[in-house]
């Protein structure tokens, strides 16, 4: 008896193994297999030790809280049934790992294979160990995902890619349905906890939402378990490596749907709709699968359709709704897993040792591989339901159930007949598999000379076949107790009396079995030779599942393309218009419903100076909008005036920090845009020469003007409505009251930035840094348009003038130009830096702070550049903006992280007073360190952006350079700033 939390280890082990295996060297086949096998056996060992705790329907539960506030926990639940399922997953998993070690070629990246396999195993374990419906759906999707990777493992192979894609699309769409169904069930039951859902079974069945929930869950289960009409993906998944087929299509993947059906059987079954849907689908799948399996020429194809058929059998049993049928379903699930896994492995050996899986080419292999042949014969006999094998026992139970009356409909009467027919088919295809592959004359023209497989590769089959025999001969001693535990945990009080004996006397099921065996053999004797000539299955062959799937898929894709053509556009202007119009709609709808009214607050008196300020501001904004096309510089100046009005308004409206920052940003933005102007093309005023502006353009401009006016009016109206209403009580009061006692500063805005909302600011400066690096990187590869490469006209005139004058060099005119302002600017540098430091230090108490200080310092540096020219400055001053940025980010993060050492959360700030001689007590807050980080980032960012842009003007154009420099080298040497 172990503690419940060891369940977590069982679940985590495969995922851990998968992670480690992913990092093993590509050729480490044996190491990866050993790791996978070890992990699987360890998990299985832990699982086995839980068995003693599971008697009498008891369950082990473990809940690890994850988001308790949302009711989300990692909930694990192990009962007899999920124990049996986990044992299948891990046991057959371990055998598949051993088999795969010898099956997989040394040429393949085998560690990746094992990584996928373990992850898949973990997902399956998660599915069966989950105690919560949503969690089941999560692991369900994971199994879809990893099965996709496993089926598509040989991704160079087109059919593997197609099969994997088809399996993913079908099972993942089913997974969505399953999730919605689970949500409905959870809604009805009031909880997603499996135990509570099962307890609420009666309420669920009585709910009006029962039918939709049932159908959605069934679509999920049917897609996964390859039930008609979703069965067609499974044969295509045979493109996977055979160990994958052996694992996915015996014990795991396809059994996930069966697992969910059995899990929810107590809650969902027992209604007419359950009976009709589930048993009809199961019956159809049973017959179609068995019929199609007869006509397959590919060994794995035969096994694939037989898997479909057996899954149909289990589904049919579950559909019947009687407890005995459920017992048979659970029992057959286990039996099918053992014999089908061994058959897939045998098919893999045949493929591996002969180079083909084509039944028409194979013949007489028994003399080359006698052991494999014997093993396959026993397993195939179990599949056919021959007595003394496990398949016989569950098939007898199935036939007995088929004879029972369940609903009083016509299904009751035809079921015994159809069950016998399906069993006959099963005998027929099993016989064909064995006879065609192992008997008859020696094969001719095989790609490889057949011989026996290595012993270790046969060992998994030997173990599985031994189990088939043991369960078939002494069921009560082997599977009996396990089955009893599993059954009682599912059925609880409804557990029926059943007998696992191999002899129940002469009865009707035995007669049906005998008919099936004899019939199957007879049919093979009559039709066996003709089967080899068949190209597709008669009747069923017309059901082109794959064709339909591709048609639906391409219809969806075409539809999406058409829709994109219809409503999509690549024109930015159209997109922006649509965006703004959508905003109008979003704002207009509530406005139309609720109406518009100005608020009740008393208006503040209009200050005429403020009014004049905004008359100027508004006129410049409109002028800028009007002139931006042909008079860029003028428009830029006009935007600047509007910006200044904004800046003054901030100060007017009691926001000195904003005014200060806006003023500084205004300056750097202006410099930035001026630097950019040089690279823009000249605008021809007569874009449409002669004919005047076309009508369509006039119409478009009119529409734009209308949108702009409506937008402006709307925003103005909103702003007015907000301003004339009393302010709601927000979080501001708290910030105000706590600014000094809690944050140690009197400038509340700054305290909010560096303390209360410090994490936001940290994100903010990170964004700034990323933007700066992006700008820098973009400019390294910058190629100006051909017409802008030439030197600007003013420089050419100056140079011509310098050349013409006696005793002057090129550049003299520029050097003498504005000499006095230049000296002033140069001398201002230390003053500006001092001002920046002052703003930084006082920021916590008075307007200023890291942002303003950083901008000020970068303006100082830019002034220096403007006064002396780039080359002269860089000869003396080496600004390394990238270092500033990284130092700033480190400083800010380290300040935040330092709080951890004192046991406080990230970015908690601390402040106290430091007694400085002469000055007296000076407040020192850790927030200042954070602000220094902000300062450094802002300096680095601004300077990096502006210098990178400025450097473009002094680059030597590539065309005029004499030697052809390597492009990257040139860009790198010029981009350094």
């Amino acid at each position, binding site marked *: 008896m172990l503690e419940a939390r060891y369940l977590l280890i069982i679940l985590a082990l495969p995922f851990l193994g998968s992670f480690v295996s992913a990092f093993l060297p590509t050729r480490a086949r044996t190491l990866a297999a050993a790791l996978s096998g070890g992990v699987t056996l360890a998990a299985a060992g832990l699982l086995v030790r839980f068995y003693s705790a599971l008697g009498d329907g008891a369950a082990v539960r473990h809940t690890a809280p994850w988001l308790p506030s949302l009711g989300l926990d990692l909930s694990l639940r192990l009962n007899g049934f999920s124990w049996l399922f986990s044992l299948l997953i891990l046991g057959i998993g371990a055998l598949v790992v051993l088999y795969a070690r010898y099956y997989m070629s040394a040429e393949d990246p085998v560690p990746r294979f094992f990584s996928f396999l373990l992850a898949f195993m973990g997902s399956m374990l998660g599915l069966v160990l989950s105690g919560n419906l949503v969690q089941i759906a999560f692991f369900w999707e994971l199994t879809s995902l990893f099965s996709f990777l496993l089926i598509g493992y040989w991704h160079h192979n087109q059919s593997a890619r197609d099969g994997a894609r088809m399996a993913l699309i079908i099972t993942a769409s089913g997974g969505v349905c399953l999730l919605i169904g689970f949500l409905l069930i959870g809604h009805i039951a009031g909880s997603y906890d499996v135990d509570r859902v099962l307890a609420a079974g009666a309420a669920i069945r009585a709910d009006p939402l029962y039918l939709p929930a049932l159908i959605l869950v069934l679509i999920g289960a049917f897609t996964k378990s390859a039930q008609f009409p979703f069965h067609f993906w499974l044969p295509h998944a045979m493109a996977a490596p055979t160990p994958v087929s052996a694992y996915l299509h015996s014990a795991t993947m396809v059994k996930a749907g069966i697992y969910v059906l059995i899990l929810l059987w107590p809650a969902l079954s027992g209604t007419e709709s359950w009976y009709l849907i589930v048993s009809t689908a199961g019956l159809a799948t049973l017959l179609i699968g068995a019929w199609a399996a007869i006509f397959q020429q590919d060994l794995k194809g035969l096994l694939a359709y037989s898997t479909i058929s057996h899954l149909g059998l289990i589904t049919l049993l579950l559909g019947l709704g009687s407890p005995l049928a459920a017992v048979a379903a659970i029992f057959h699930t286990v039996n099918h897993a053992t014999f089908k896994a061994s058959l897939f492995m045998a098919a893999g050996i045949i493929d591996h040792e002969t180079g083909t899986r084509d039944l028409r080419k194979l013949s007489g292999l028994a003399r080359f591989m006698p052991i494999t042949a014997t093993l396959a014969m026993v397993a195939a006999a179990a599949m056919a339901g021959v007595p003394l094998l496990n398949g016989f026992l569950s098939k007898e139970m199935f036939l007995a159930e088929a004879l029972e009356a369940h609903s009083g409909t016509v299904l009751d009467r035809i079921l015994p007949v159809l069950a016998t027919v399906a069993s006959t088919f099963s005998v027929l295809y099993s016989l064909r598999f064995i006879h065609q592959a192992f008997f008859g004359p020696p094969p001719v023209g095989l790609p490889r000379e057949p011989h026996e497989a290595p012993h270790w590769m046969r060992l998994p089959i030997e173990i599985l076949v031994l189990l088939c025999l043991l369960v078939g001969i002494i069921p009560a001693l082997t599977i009996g107790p396990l089955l009893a535990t599993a059954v009682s945990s599912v059925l609880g009080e409804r557990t029926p009396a059943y007998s696992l004996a191999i002899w129940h006397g002469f009865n009707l099921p035995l007669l049906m079995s005998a008919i099936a065996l004899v019939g199957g053999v007879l049919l093979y004797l009559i039709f066996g030779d003709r089967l080899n000539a068949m190209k597709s299955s008669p009747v069923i062959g017309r059901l082109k599942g794959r064709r339909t799937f591709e048609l639906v898929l391409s219809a969806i894709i075409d539809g999406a393309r058409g829709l994109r053509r219809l409503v999509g556009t690549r*024109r*930015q*202007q159209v997109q922006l*218009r649509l965006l*703004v119009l959508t905003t109008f709609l979003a704002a207009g709808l509530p406005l139309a419903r609720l109406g518009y009214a100005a608020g009740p*607050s008393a208006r503040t008196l*209009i200050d005429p100076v403020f009014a004049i300020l*905004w008359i100027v*501001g*508004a006129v410049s*904004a*409109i002028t*800028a*909008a009007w002139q931006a096309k042909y008079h860029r510089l003028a428009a830029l100046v006009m*935007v600047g005036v*509007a910006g200044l009005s*904004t800046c003054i*308004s901030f100060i007017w*409206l*009691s926001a*000195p920090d*904003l005014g200060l920052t*806006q003023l500084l940003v205004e300056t*750097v*933005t202006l410099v*930035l845009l001026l630097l*950019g102007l040089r690279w823009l*093309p000249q*605008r021809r005023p007569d874009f449409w020469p002669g004919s005047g502006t*076309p009508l369509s353009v006039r119409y478009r401009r009119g529409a734009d003007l209308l949108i*702009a006016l409506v*937008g*402006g*009016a709307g925003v103005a109206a909103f*702003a*007015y409505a*907000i*301003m004339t209403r009393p*302010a709601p009580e927000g979080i*501001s*009061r708290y910030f*105000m*009251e706590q600014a000094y006692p809690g944050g140690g500063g*009197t*400038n*509340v*805005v700054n305290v*909010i930035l560096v303390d209360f*909302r410090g994490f936001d600011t940290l994100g*903010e400066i990170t964004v700034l840094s990323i933007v*700066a690096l992006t700008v820098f990187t*973009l*400019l390294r590869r910058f*190629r*100006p*348009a*051909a017409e802008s490469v030439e030197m600007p006209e003013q420089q050419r005139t100056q140079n011509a003038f310098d050349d013409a004058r006696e005793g002057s060099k090129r550049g003299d005119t520029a050097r003498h130009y504005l000499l006095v302002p230049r000296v002033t600017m140069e001398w201002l540098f230390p003053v500006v830096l001092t001002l920046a430091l002052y703003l930084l230090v006082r920021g916590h108490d*008075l*307007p200023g702070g890291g*942002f303003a200080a950083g901008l000020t310092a970068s303006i100082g540096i830019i002034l220096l550049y403007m006064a002396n020219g780039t080359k002269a400055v860089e000869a003396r001053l080496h600004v390394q903006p990238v270092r500033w940025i990284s130092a700033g980010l480190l400083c800010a993060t380290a300040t935040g992280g330092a709080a951890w050492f004192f046991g406080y959360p990230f970015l908690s700030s601390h402040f106290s007073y430091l007694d400085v001689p002469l000055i007296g007590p000076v407040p020192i807050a850790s927030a200042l360190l954070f602000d220094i980080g902000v300062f450094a980032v802002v300096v680095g960012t601004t300077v990096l952006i502006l210098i990178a842009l400025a450097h473009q003007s002094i680059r030597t154009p590539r065309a005029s350079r004499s030697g052809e420099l390597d492009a990257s080298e040139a860009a790198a040497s010029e981009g350094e700033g």
Partner: protein
Amino acid sequence: MEAVLALAIGTLTASGLWLLFRPRTFQVVLGLCLLSYAVNLFIVAAGRLRTDAPPIVGKVAVDPAQYVDPVPQALVLTAIVISFATTALLLVVLLASRGLTGTDHVDGEEDDQ
């Protein structure tokens, strides 16, 4: 005052929107500048208008009613700096796009007409 500021915000928005819809990249950059003024003013206005009440508090017994709401200001302060960064990024992207495509049209190619 409220009406003046509302009209100012409206004018800035209208001018900005008009420029936003223009086909030339430089116009769009200027339009975004004007729009960012409008938005910043709008956010500050959402904290209601107060003159001579900057949020520089005393050290004891603070009465929040005496000061203007600091939260919109904190929001706008970072917005101002970020808007500079985005303007720079946009400008450089547009310059690079012009270098690659040879046109300063926002779509990287001239209109068909």
